[in-house]
């Protein structure tokens, strides 16, 4: 028997839900498919049905609302890059997207595909976690919302049930936000060897009301660093936060659980958690400079 799969082409969400309800896990969503293509080719993924979402136009959008930016799951990485101008949060997401893959792959790959692939090194997850984004998930049964932080269960594992499809990511719009993503890569096109993202949410006087730090490629899933965040919360940005940020970086590194692999050693990743978190925080503070003084 020749190895192949059945191709399904829904044009509406309802059709997509119906296929999912019928075939469940045997139908994998092809949301761009740049990861799935490789997994299938290398026989690391099997699927009976390719549920191609390319033609579900209702899933490709970036909507700006007063309270949030809503990103359809089929928005491409290139779309995210082009939406960088919306606000500080979207700048962090857009510049992250621009670091990913090649341009001619960013035009195919989607935010939904990237998140559902749930690679430990996935670039979009850390900034979305730092920015407290929410995933909207749907199926023929209805919809539910999950904070991105709780979306990932492990390597290639998410909270999606067999019949569910990721529909949208909502990124809150909060005044006085600084957000940054830092990573180590080898050449200009690479997957992250290790990454850190930070977001600072301040009041008008530069006091940190809330802080979030998330790390990538240091655990089976992207992780948050609550201890590091706790150090930052309540502090005031005054243009000289070197010690605070260094400490937050050091604590974040302590919260990571990296392993050694072909791309980097555990030791290097630990050290980079420290450096990159500090640098991400410095970047956030720099963005908030006008409000912080």
């Amino acid at each position, binding site marked *: 028997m020749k190895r192949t799969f059945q191709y399904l082409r829904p044009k509406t969400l309802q059709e997509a839900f119906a296929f999912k309800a019928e075939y469940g896990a045997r139908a994998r969503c092809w949301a761009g498919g740049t990861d799935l293509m490789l997994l299938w080719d290398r026989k690391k993924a099997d699927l009976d049905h390719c549920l191609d979402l390319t033609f579900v136009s209702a899933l490709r959008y970036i909507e700006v609302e007063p309270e949030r930016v809503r990103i359809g799951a089929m928005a491409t990485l290139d779309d995210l890059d082009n939406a960088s101008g919306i606000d500080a949060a979207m700048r962090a997401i857009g510049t992250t997207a621009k670091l990913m893959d090649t341009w001619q792959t960013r035009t195919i790959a989607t935010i939904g595909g990237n998140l559902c692939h749930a690679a430990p090194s996935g670039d979009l997850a850390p900034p979305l976690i730092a920015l407290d984004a929410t995933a909207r998930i749907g199926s023929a049964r209805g919809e539910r919302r999950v904070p991105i932080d709780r979306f990932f269960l492990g390597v290639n594992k998410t909270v999606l049930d067999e019949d569910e499809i990721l529909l949208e990511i909502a990124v809150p719009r909060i005044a006085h936000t600084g957000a940054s993503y830092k990573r180590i890569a*080898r050449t200009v096109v690479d*997957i992250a*060897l290790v990454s850190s993202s930070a977001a600072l949410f301040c009041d008008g006087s530069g006091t940190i009301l809330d802080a979030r730090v998330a790390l990538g490629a240091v655990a089976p899933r992207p992780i948050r660093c609550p201890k590091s965040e706790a150090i930052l919360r309540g502090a005031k940005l005054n243009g000289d936060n070197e010690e605070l940020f260094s400490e937050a970086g050091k604590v974040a590194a302590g919260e990571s659980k990296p392993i050694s692999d072909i791309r980097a050693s555990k*030791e290097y990743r630990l*050290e980079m958690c420290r450096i990159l978190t500090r640098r991400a925080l410095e970047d956030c503070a720099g963005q908030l400079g006008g409000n912080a003084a």
Partner: protein
Amino acid sequence: MNKALHFKDKPRTPFKIVGKGVPVKDAREKVCGTLKYGVDASAHGMAYGKILRSTKPHARIKRIDASKALELGGVLAVITHEDCPQLNWENAWFNYRGKIMDGIARFVGDEIGAVAAMSEEIAQQAIEMIEVEYEPLPTVFDPEEAMKPDAPQLREEGNVREPYIVEWGDTAAGEAESDFIVECDIKFDSQQYAPLGRNACVAEWSDDRVTVWTASQTPSELRDAIHEALGIPQSKVRVCAMPSGSSFGSWWANSFMVVTAMLARKAGRAVKIELTNWECMATVKRRHNEITRGRMGVRKDGTLTLAQFDHIIDNGAYGFKDDVGFFCVDLWGRAMHGHYAVHGVNTNTLTAGCMRGVGDVTLGAAVERLADMCAEKVDMDPLDFRLKNQIRSGELLRMQHAKRYMHGNLEEYLKGIPEESRKMWPRLFHLSSGSTEQILTDGGKAFRWKERWKGWRNPGTIDGPKRRAVGVGTGAHVCGVEFEGSTSAVVRINPDGSAKVHCSVGRQGQGSETTQSQVAAEVLGIPFDRIEIETGDTDSCPWSHGSLASNTMYRVGFATWAAAIDARQQLLAMAAREFFDGDPDELDIDDGIIRYAGRPDSNVRVTIEEAMNHFRGHDTLGQTSSITGRNSIPMPPATTFARHFAAHFVELEVDTETGEIRLLDWLACQDSGTVMNPQVLKNQMIGGAICGAGFALYEGLMFAEDGSIRNAALLDYKLLRAADFPLNGEVVYGDSYDPVGPFGARGAGEAPIAAAGPAICQAVYNAIGVWVDMPMTPERVLRALGRI
């Protein structure tokens, strides 16, 4: 010989086409995507082949059962070791020595069988249905382990080659004369050709004769390889070599090509085997991984007293090299005493072979590092230290392996050369022309080296964790080798006044089709665009070593030049008789028109087309419809006097917190004698720099416990991209003139890659104060700094 066309020194009158940056002949085809490469080869009605590859690093094939595969619909033929003739064959320069499928697998990925089927997918499916029972044999993956007497042996000759030794003076004396001694112990990772463009081979038999279409830099060598491996006469093999993607030595005569020929014979029809990217990176060849332990000595006045190196090269499974033709030995040959020993060793890993700048990229980098350490000891600027200690034109060469490899004894060899030819030969074993002197001087000025160099371990700029510094590196390589035979070419003048060159070279992007045509056009006085060239068909191209060892411009160029001279002389002899009064030596050809040289008043002019038509159409003594020129002037042994040189300058920035290195500015300088085509040469220089920078920063194969390769894909074998390298692309050319090479030109493609790594290493050292082994990944930089 026509004296007007042989210049031991640069002529005063400018060349017509030599030195012009004409676009390469296949430029339009390349930008339109119409040029056909190896992967585009096809034959009518062809079947598709796939190779069964060993999953074990070292094993005897106990049983191999293809009966299920043969039952699969669409499967045409299967071959295993039982179908193979068990004849030894050799790839050029010992890049392979052994048998195709002899019933023993020697690395993970080794060929143990092949299937031909109606489609690639069926062939792949059939491959998976072949049952193989292996009898595991003991393995060895570390070259130093493989050298031990009780190590498992991979081949009948044993794992270890006789050490290849170059020595002069007395190292003990050198040590005694030194004020300082410096040492190194460096392990070099293995660089992968990463040949973008992959390759395929189509073979088709007609009765007992096989034709092979594939991309190869060495068409003649490939013909000979198939002849050896299959045991059929050379006349029964026709190779039609096609252009390849970037090759760097990857595509010469490769075992998969021989497999294709065998499979096509069994299938009884044309078969195409197209390699996947994984196969290209994990089963063909790689640069040797190498270990260098060295010492150098220096006197307080900056004179090098000692160069002593012990160097191990891991040949992998089927490589058989005992030396790497390392010309850093010559470059730094002014050292008073020297001893270099090279050990070739086999292991159960992917075959290693000659990759661009072989030896000079590795051992050369070690020598450059120790030279820099010497310079620092005596507090000399590295540029001045190179000017003081590097070879100059006319000086003695240390690499004298011609004495070892040339047939018979050298004196007798020389006696066999006609007196007239010998007069034009340069002094053997002495550098005939060029050096690093001019390019270091001119390049240093262009780079503003003296301003930007701040002293050893003194970065020019420090900005928080980021440090900037400059570096200079040098490299040398040969200009072709002759130990496997002399190079020939044929030049034909057609009745319409156009001409065709036949020479067996590769077309891997180095512009040989263009530069060879420029040589012929200059000699013949025929416009460049009326010169056509065949480089790949062994039925029409005479034997040549091919495009390897920076051979193309120098030795093939010489043959093309000599063949063109022969054709020109024949043409002028007949023209003189039929149209002019006098000596053919008094005639010249310009823009396709024959006339008296130096007699502008004469209005006797004949176009080549008119002359040729006269020769064929009239009752003349000519009686010819085309003229065929051959290279009747013997080429002196290039290895004994010709080298090409590169000096590269870099400015870079090291982030001492993350270990990341960013290249900021680059200047590539080259002495290759006359620049045949600046458009071609600048690309060779910068291209070499980028490939060398890749090796310096990221490129290195990683091996698993079973010797297989963990990063045989571009996702984790990182190649530099446009934004990773400085954009200026400036180059500086030396203007030396070679007494032998065509119109003063020499080889070009390999010194640049050798110079790039050392420049980066030195700049990193100046930035952070520690030497880092290549590839200088961010992690290695931090480890060298002691930060992790």
